[in-house]
């Protein structure tokens, strides 16, 4: 497996994603500048967190026009796996690869902390190493992570089992108390209906080694790597 970490001007978790795939999971990994237009040699495309274009205008709204995004969209249609984390998730919704939008947090503040995340769908290439309904502890760090979509989109997400992660209590209850940003039905991460594009606000790459926590994030990243071994 070869991973491309896309670097937009203002990306700042590109380095963290690179370390996670390259050093922790020992996979061939490259930084790819946003002006690149050919991603033929990659099996996985990572849209990292950060503040692409300073989040000016709207998070992810300018990055979607970067030259590389046309190629990301092309490749996703061919089934190449794409993961968008935080700002990367915002770019995925802005470019229409995932439905809905990420809006200002309910309490209108940036929030950086560990949250509990319930794995709602482990039948994906991104989560198959997690246990059924496992509750992971993974950090969030964002101002605009309040997921919103129309009632119609929501019922489609639910019908197709596209809601992959929800904010929960440590014992797996989905309630308002466990919802850090006001996301509709506690959505923290969703997948497209063909199962190869995942967007999530929490940062698995920040909790992928024991020194920094319980390394729950590694389960998600390893699932991706492992899915290539199985093929």
């Amino acid at each position, binding site marked *: 497996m070869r991973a491309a970490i896309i670097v937009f001007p203002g990306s700042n978790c590109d380095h963290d994603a690179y370390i996670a795939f390259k050093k922790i999971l020992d996979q061939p990994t490259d930084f790819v500048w946003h002006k690149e237009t050919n991603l033929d040699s990659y099996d996985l495309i990572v849209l990292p967190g950060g503040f692409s274009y300073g989040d000016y205008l709207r998070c992810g709204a300018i990055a979607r026009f970067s030259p590389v995004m046309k190629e990301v969209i092309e490749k996703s249609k061919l089934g190449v796996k794409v993961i968008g984390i935080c700002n990367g998730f915002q770019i995925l919704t802005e470019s229409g690869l995932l439905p809905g939008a990420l809006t200002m947090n309910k309490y209108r*503040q940036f929030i*950086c902390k560990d949250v509990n995340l319930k794995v709602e769908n482990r039948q994906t290439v991104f989560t198959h190493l997690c246990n059924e309904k496992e509750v992971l502890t993974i950090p969030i*760090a964002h101002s605009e992570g309040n997921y919103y979509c129309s009632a119609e989109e929501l019922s489609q997400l639910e019908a197709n089992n596209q809601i992959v992660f929800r904010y929960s209590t440590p014992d797996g209850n989905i309630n308002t108390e466990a919802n850090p940003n006001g996301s509709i039905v506690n959505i923290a991460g969703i997948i497209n209906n063909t199962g190869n594009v995942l967007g999530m606000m929490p940062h698995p790459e920040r909790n992928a080694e024991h020194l920094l926590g319980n390394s729950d994030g590694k389960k998600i990243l390893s699932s991706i790597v492992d899915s290539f071994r199985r093929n």
Partner: protein
Amino acid sequence: MPNEPTVDLQLAIEHGLSEEEYEKICKTLGRTPTYTELGIYSVMWSEHCSYKNSLLQLKTLPREGEKLLVGAGEENAGLIDIGDGYAVAFKIESHNHPSAVEPYQGAATGVGGIMRDIFTMGARPVAALDSLRFGELDKQKNRYLFSGVVKGIGDYGNCLGVPTVAGDVYFEECYTDNCLVNAMTVGVAKKGRIAKAIAKTPGAAVYAIGSSTGRDGIHGATFASEELSDESEEKRSSVQVGDPFTEKLLLEATLELIKEDVIEGIQDMGAAGLTSSSSEISAKSELGIELQLDNMHLREKDMIPYEIMLSESQERMLVICKPGKEELFEEICRKWDLDFTKIGKVTDDKNLKVFFKGEMVADIPSASLAAGEGAPVYERESKRPAYLDQVQNLNIDTLQVPEDISAAFMKVFSSPNIVSKQWVYEQYDYMVRTNSVIQPGGDAAVVRIKGTNRALSTKTDCNARYVYLDPRMGAAIAVAESARNVVCTGAQPVAVTNCLNFGNPYKPEVFWQFKEAIAGMGESCRSLETPVTGGNVSFYNESESYQVYPTPVIGMLGIIDDLSHITPAGFQEEGDLVYLIGKTLPELGGSEYLKRIHNQVAGLPPHLDLETEKKVQEVTLNAIRAGLVQSCHDLADGGLAVGLAESCIVNKNNSLGLKAQLTSDLPDHVLAFSESQSRFIISILPENKKEFEKHLFDNDIPFSHLGEVGGNSFSFNDFFDFSLEELKEIYYSTIPSIMNQ
């Protein structure tokens, strides 16, 4: 130039220069200065740039050390050799006045400025810290300043992708109109890849890169060099506006330019903008710099040379390009979408020459502008303030012991100065770059250095009440406490940076406080072998109604040699044994207890014995390194009772109780709340009991066994017994409930 005022003594005085200083300028130039030159002198000779009233005192601080690669004042920041081929650049700087006037932008640009000081040296910022002081939160104005400052720091640092990992926040009435915002950055560089603010080759091209230049921030440095008043609000235009996205591009581009070896010298355009960056490089290199202002990239119309030279528009750098590397230089700037313009060249004289529309508008010997060289240096008059006799007079024996010590504890523990600052640090991205091993909330932050087995430990600190009551002792304690904080995490303290926040130095009482504080800081730094690598002086922290406590903030840097030494502040496992290390004395002067329960800021601060301090720190660190310690926490504000409660609940999701028992001849309130120095709370595994106690005994360190970790409550003798839930509710909800009201 047309449309410029006539330069005379009156105009010079309006620029903050004295008659004597104006005469000195005329004599140096051999003529009346032009309007542009007057502007240049006025900012370079302002307190902020010249350190004219503090330099003689600063020179008494220890500035030598085996790990120092660059000493105080030589570059933008001090540079420490941390081994394995890496160096650390770190520095703290104030942005008090801008933040008091416009908290969001003031704080944001304060962060931006100190970040540039670090990455201009070729060091990638790996940690940010912030030392903040506000008035009490019952006033709406103070809550407004507090929330604006925190948001400003967060939005800037978060966008830049530098984790804000530690700091300190205090609330005290004296900071009501004049909040203090001190921002610190720690950066890591490869030892052979350090950039300097120098020029080497006459003829080399001088570039400005980054944001365009506007009228924002003109006279920011002068603004920082006077007291705050109602008119300060009108100086809002002096506060610059930050653009963290451009800063991020500038950061990446600067590091790439340095890595690709295309630059000869580089300097951030900080306070006094183009003027300070160009004249400092010129003076230091003993070469001239010639600037063609017509080439500057401007964002406003009809700017005159005076304004272009004095603008403090943010996110700009002055770069001297290596001859022959111009093409690569420009290519890298273009890659990062950064504006760049060639604005001049290095010359073989020693002057700063400024041209505009074919006319020479300034021609100044650069050395005459430089701090400690041509710029004036004064020894101000000092006088012991009369208030000291009054406030130091406190007889602890006559203080009433509270009938209900349990209620007293709750009152102290719920003080905004004591409770968790989670509301603050959750607004900061403290994890980005995945190095934050010990996150905010502990004694000090620990940031590992990837590719090595080492980590940095860092913390800011200053209990300004102590400094107010005894400047010499208070400043010595600020150094000792910040050193203790990093020791707790398993680090050897190695060096400090300081941010000296004081009142108007022309008041002899203020200057006495300053001198005494520097003396105490020097003694403490010498004893603990932590030289001062640089920092910042902020005078004039006064308003019409308030004068801040003298607040010499210390930013401490410690090195952890082995990641396995990293030690948390909170208790780890049921059954672990808890010890108090050090001696508790009847010291309630300046304590949080005295303020909350007896409503007094009085007495003498606790006594710091430097020899004891050094020994306790060494013995503790050795125990940590020997693998004997499960958790280690410094005792400070609030004393033993508060420190133990913190060790129970600082790990929010895995809190552990304690039934502490300690027999003592001291009155109950002294035992619970004394803020005696040189003390730690340590927990150990039961099987290490013998070895640990022997280690302390052999080193003559006094210690007491307090109890075992376990249970769902924290009790102390028969004083009180509180459930952990109750303690957590107060610790973590007090500030949010004040701020969300």
